[in-house]
């Protein structure tokens, strides 16, 4: 199976790879997937005034999983929390031209975004 040029580009030049400290102010962390399933994504957002000013990821998984999470961080930056909530896995599928067997990678990326947003809300509500 050949990967699309965009998947290869994200894989070779991952955007925003890395981590924030989980307890840092304004940081929301989403961790989804399971090692037994062959993919785990950690996606983090840094929020100021309801806007995502920075995002980072780390992913254990195939090239498409890495590309999906890399793309997600690119898209998240600059978005408001409300806009971020609207990112759909199908947008990722389209942008990266993922084949049917790789759709679960995009689903995982959407789940990771939702989990990071939920974590941020939970932490800010707790204050």
């Amino acid at each position, binding site marked *: *199976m050949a990967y699309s040029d965009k998947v290869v580009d994200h894989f070779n030049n*991952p955007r925003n790879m890395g981590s924030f400290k989980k307890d840092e102010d304004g940081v929301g962390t989403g961790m989804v997937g399971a090692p037994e399933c*062959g993919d785990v994504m950690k996606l983090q957002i840094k929020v100021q005034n309801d806007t995502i000013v920075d995002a980072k990821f*780390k992913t*254990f998984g195939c090239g498409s999983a890495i590309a999906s999470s890399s793309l997600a961080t690119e898209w998240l930056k600059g978005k408001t929390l409300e806009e971020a909530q609207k990112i759909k896995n199908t947008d990722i599928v389209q942008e990266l031209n993922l084949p049917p067997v790789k759709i679960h990678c995009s689903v*995982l990326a959407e789940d990771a975004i939702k989990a990071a947003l939920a974590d941020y809300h939970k932490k800010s509500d707790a204050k």
Partner: protein
Amino acid sequence: MKLPIFLDNHSTTPMDPRVLEAMLPYFTEKFGNAASRNHAFGWAAEEAVDAARKQIARLINADAKEIVFTSGATESDNLAIKGVLEMYKEKGTHIITAVTEHRAVLDTAKALEAKGLATVTLLPVDKQGMVNPEDVRNAITDKTVLISIMLANNEIGSINPIKQIGKIAKEKGVLFHCDATQGVGKIPVNVQDMGIDLMSFSAHKIYGPKGIGALYVRKKNPRVRIAAQMDGGGHERGMRSGTLAVPLIVGFGKACEICQQEMAAESERLTKMRDRLQSAIMGALEETYLNGHPTNRLPGNLNISFAYVEGESLLMGMKDIALSSGSACTSATLEPSYVLRALGVGTELAHSSIRFGLGRFNTDEEIDYTIKKVIEVVTKLREMSPLYEMAKDGVDLKSVQWAAH
């Protein structure tokens, strides 16, 4: 050095130029049908087939008359298992095989079972992928008609104790089929000494052409009979009809002859190269695990799991090296290698496995390049891996509640 590098010699092998040279006249000048008994074209073809049959038989210490040509090892496995079960159905319908067998054996046995034509016992393997001969003995009943155990595994290269299993089969009067596709031509195979009654193998794994294989069918002590699975002209002593693929057979014969002459030297060279690859990679990278038997394995085989990185992404990072992974990220089931799972390798480590398959045409320079590339890509992907980060932070990954999806 030319890129990409081919390190997937368990899947197939490039044809040896000497094999191609031997085949060429049989496409154009000597194109006869080996079954044409009344003209020179037929005789030339028949003569070539006979010579090839001898070369093949010699490699496994069989008689030329015991070689039945097929399209490949999958067909040979099918013919052996279905052919024996059909022929000996009055005696019984029980088959003994093992969990790490190739799909051509497992699925054939399962298909017979699904049709109600067989009952199948699947033996487990130990942590190094070996079948225990005593398990074979204990599984035999008075209804057992066939034992089918592979010589060497295609993923992990572990070599089964075939001679001991053959001895048990003989003692109990049960036929013994061996899928020797990965072993023939790489390690010494002797059907007499090993007590094998039927044996599958193919040409393209030993630097011969694709599309040709053989089933060894023992002619005496005991005389094995199989029911043909294809009707037609009654070729191959009635066991496999169809016009013989003369050029492919000539190539198969030549490939066997070369293996016989060069096996000792080639095996030594590949073992040395493989061991160097293994120690360089495992010495440089922490948390790497060898899958399969540490010593009792095919010379060109190396199967390693790289903790915290997923196999398919590893392959993608090393796209100028042709390798294979036990990860099944592309399969709809998300189930990784059943062979590694049968060894008790954890699912996550099965996803992280890479199979290196070294062959006749690999060079030391290619191995140097591979060592460098593997270390570089694994290091890069571990930097990218949340699991590696957690492990470095002292988190016990087994204690984490993962949301399986």
